[in-house]
């Protein structure tokens, strides 16, 4: 099993490779994307991505010395004419940088890539919502060489998918998320993800106006113009971070029969936590023949990325060293979690909590 790790800074390349990354993936969010509809990849905030293709080239140069491939994520929808034209430009630049392959979600873009670059591997992003073997077969026909599975599939559904693919004789390498799964909604269908028009931004705009007013009063013209553009960029990033799924709600459950109301507060529709972990699933992923383990978290500090890589590669090494049952692996996993992060792992931060519980206490199975 290979580990695919996120990167968003040139300076962290060497450290991530030395911590155990077998592949790197990144996005490029340059200035042109600020002025049009759409975004260059699935990550809403520009701080998750590199700022230019020069940075990408630098990363490819460093990783090349270690023989580590670098993939670029072009996994937004690009339905608008402007964004499609711009992503085509980016695509050519990425090919010029000699990127190892592309992580893509849009079918029109898959076709476009095949026109420009016939031999580069195409990885289907989780944003494409590939839930079943029929969809895998469709994408295989389009030239996709690996599929990142939706994080919403349960372990038994993953097993089922693998069985169906075997039965249909579809040979397709699969990739699954193992760490920092923060989202509860189906990524490819979620319109909370990366919106620019969120109503809560009205609250923020008052703060922005105050800042600008302050600058106008105390700063010379050239200086404040530069400052304003910086503030607007920050504002946009901040605005995109406020997703409706991270808010706390008052929930009213209304019975259809007697119209009685049941109120629940606070009610979360997203994950208020950041580091949802699916590391123990590696045991089963290996059994199902899933070849690639993906770590999420392009936006995270280098220190955390290194911790994540150390943790996941330690678990993989445990499985490679000798065969064991799940109970033993789970205990080793907990031990390594404690060693790496300096705290115990919690069931509340476990992506497959009910599955793990059932495996450890089969008597409680529902």
């Amino acid at each position: 099993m290979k580990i695919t790790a996120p990167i968003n800074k040139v300076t962290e390349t060497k450290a991530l490779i030395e911590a155990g990354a077998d592949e790197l993936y990144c996005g490029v969010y340059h200035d042109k994307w600020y002025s049009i509809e759409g975004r260059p990849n699935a990550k809403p905030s520009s701080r998750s991505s590199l700022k230019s293709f020069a940075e990408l080239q630098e990363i490819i140069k460093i990783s090349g010395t270690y023989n580590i491939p670098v993939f670029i994520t072009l996994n937004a929808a690009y339905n608008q004419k402007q964004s499609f034209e711009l992503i085509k430009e980016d695509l050519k630049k990425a090919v010029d940088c000699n990127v190892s392959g592309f992580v893509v979600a849009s079918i029109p873009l898959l076709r476009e890539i095949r026109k420009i670059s016939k031999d580069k591997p195409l990885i289907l992003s989780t944003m494409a919502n590939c839930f079943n073997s029929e969809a895998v077969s469709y994408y295989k026909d389009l030239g996709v060489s690996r599929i990142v599975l939706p994080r919403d599939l349960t372990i038994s559904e993953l097993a089922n998918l693998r069985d169906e693919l075997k039965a249909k004789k579809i040979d397709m390498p699969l990739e699954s998320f193992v760490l920092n799964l923060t989202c509860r909604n189906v990524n490819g269908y979620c319109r909370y993800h990366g919106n620019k028009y969120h109503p809560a931004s009205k609250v923020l705009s008052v703060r922005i106006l105050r800042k600008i007013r302050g600058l106008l009063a105390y700063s010379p013209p050239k200086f404040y113009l530069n400052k304003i553009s910086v503030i607007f960029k920050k504002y946009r990033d901040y605005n995109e971070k406020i997703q409706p799924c991270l808010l706390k709600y008052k929930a009213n459950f209304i019975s259809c029969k007697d119209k009685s109301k049941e109120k629940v507060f606070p009610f979360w529709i997203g994950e208020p936590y950041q580091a949802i972990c699916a590391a123990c699933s590696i045991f089963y992923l290996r059994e199902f023949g899933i070849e690639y383990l993906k770590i999420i978290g392009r936006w995270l500090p280098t220190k955390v990325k290194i911790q994540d890589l150390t943790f996941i590669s330690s678990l993989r090494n445990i499985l490679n060293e000798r065969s064991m049952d799940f109970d033993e692996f789970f205990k080793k996993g907990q031990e390594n979690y404690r060693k790496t992060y300096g705290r115990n792992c919690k069931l509340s931060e476990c992506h497959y909590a009910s599955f793990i519980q059932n495996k450890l206490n089969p008597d409680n199975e529902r």
Partner: protein
Amino acid sequence: MKDNRISPIEKGIRVFDLSNPEKFDAYDRLYIGDDSCERLVPESTKLEAILMYARKNNKRISLLTSYYTDKGLKNLKIILGILNNSGSDIEVVINDIGVLKLLNSEYKNIIPVYGALSSSSFLHPYANFKSGCQGISSSERHLLAKEVFDFLIKNNFKRVEFDNITSIFLLADSFISKGINVSFHYPFTFLTSTRRCLFASRKSISSKFALLGCNKECLNYRLILVNRNLGHKIFVRGTAQYMRKKAKNNLSDICRDHGVDRLIRSKA
């Protein structure tokens, strides 16, 4: 002016069962199934009863489909088999590429329709006319790429469905000019979908991380979520979350003006 702009608008309604059939009198088309949860595929006996009712009362049928795991797809195939043998004007609203593959390969009598969940990626539900800026009009800013239409045409889509009124103003014309008809679902605009059922977890918030078993609680409850900062309520139906986006003028007039030839009403 195109022909479809002066022809009457076809009216559709989402139907779960035939408990109150008189409610459907005013509608020409029945939308069955659900477009957000694979567990809400209609049972074959229920489907056959609806098909019989539709034949008797001269109603047309569309099946809403969601995204499916292989297990869900097996259940769906039974329904698709029945629909494939039930006439030539039956539509299936597609929101999963796997279902499209199935239809184009095995169920060729069924007409594929591009669903509202998928088409919501064409225009963000929060997008409005003001989102045009920097000297570019919002219709120009949201103009769709030629490749999007190529994809739809190549995959035999003759109809696309929207549930966002802004899409009617900004996008409907471009589809109609390419020969693709446009339907509009009201009054809810799709926001997101999850596989962790909010209804099933209502009694046990502590187990919110678990993928819970399904007792179809969503059919017995409605869920409305309120947060003042958000500026609108969230309506949860099945596993999908919606907002209510009202049109300022008469909806039928707007649709007629923009060439939309079908209006579908959905209950909360």
